[in-house]
């Protein structure tokens, strides 16, 4: 395994479907439509992560392994092309890299809230009416709930810093990014939100 393989990977963009008769997939990133082959789309989907890992780390190595197991071909080249075109972004496992990532991207929510329950008030269900999709804890839910009004993920970290300060807890925004990336992974893997460029609106 190379050092590159240990990088975290995140998919960027809003999936806007297949196009026929051209026979390709389209993902919108910022103001641009990016085209993907069927195998490229498979890699992009795999980069979202797996619901089994929850808030855990999802690396390029995991993407290579799963893509290979799925029988996708030319995965290293596909990944390189998608990183270059902005459909995938890699993040080194250090605080500075995570802060740069958080400042560059924003999150857009999908689906609607289906509420929590008296029995499990910290479990929030998302989905569509009659069609539950995911259950989130409070921090992931709040990231989803307010993402529309947050111009970047970094903005959310600063808000979290202020909220904690109000509760008498002093934690710098930069020290909150790692936790936010865990919430983000959960939202992406469950299809409840998508990443987009912070500066393209």
């Amino acid at each position, binding site marked *: 395994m190379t050092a590159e393989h240990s990088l975290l990977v995140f998919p960027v963009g809003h999936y806007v479907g297949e196009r026929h008769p051209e026979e390709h997939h389209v993902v919108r990133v910022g103001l641009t439509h990016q085209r993907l082959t069927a195998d490229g789309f498979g890699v992009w989907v795999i980069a979202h992560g797996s619901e089994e890992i929850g808030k855990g780390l999802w690396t390029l190595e995991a993407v290579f392994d799963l893509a290979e197991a799925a029988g996708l071909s030319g995965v290293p080249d596909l990944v390189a092309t998608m990183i270059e075109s902005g459909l995938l972004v890699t993040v080194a496992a250090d605080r500075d890299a995570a802060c740069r990532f958080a400042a560059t991207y924003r999150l857009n*929510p999908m689906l609607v809230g289906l509420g929590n329950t*008296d029995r499990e008030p910290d479990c929030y269900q998302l989905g569509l009416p009659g*069609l539950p*999709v995911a259950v989130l804890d409070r921090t992931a839910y709040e990231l989803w709930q307010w993402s529309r009004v947050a111009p970047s993920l970094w903005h959310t970290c600063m808000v979290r810093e202020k909220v904690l300060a109000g509760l008498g807890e002093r934690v710098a925004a930069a020290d909150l990014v790692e936790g936010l990336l865990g919430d983000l992974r959960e939202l992406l893997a469950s299809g409840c939100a998508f990443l987009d460029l912070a500066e393209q609106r």
Partner: protein
Amino acid sequence: MAGAKLLFPVGHDLGAFHPGDGESGPVQQVRLGSELVELSDSEFLVWTLAHGLVDDDGQSVPITEAAILDYADEPGSVHSLAERGLLVEVVPGSPESVQFASIHQLLPLAMGLGNSRDQPWLFAVGLLYRPLVVMTGAMYDLWQWAHLSPNLWLACRELAAVATGAGIADPEQTEPELVLAGALGSLHQLLALRVACLDTRIEGL
């Protein structure tokens, strides 16, 4: 070209919040712009009905105040929702509809699934591998791009300019007022399935 007064719900549905304190009952929450607002049960019923209704034959019913009151006799809730900006009455094609579109945004809440070999003129929206609603290419374009514009009216103007630049001659695609009127006329089918929602315009986003 103006038609019936239609009601549109505004805000992102967050669901029923249970405080979990063993005392307070649940309250329906909606995000409206940067505000979290709470709806009473009757307000939530009216707000939900305003997303879309079908008649006994399964056909969509135009969402007018009268149609909603037929289902739920709650005129007080219609009034309180309108006062809080959660319900807006609009006549598609009217000058007021442009004002409405200038202070609201249309947000996608699902994935676009694209078209198909069999029906390349229709585009689906839903969950991955699970289409929920189909629409024309023009409406699909508005659905996917509108949230990147500062407001729905600018989104209609931009789509009309793109259509004009592409050499399209159909005024329903090249005249911003007609693009907006067409969108408002078919918007409830997206709202009903929650694949999109209207929101108040937020400066800078």
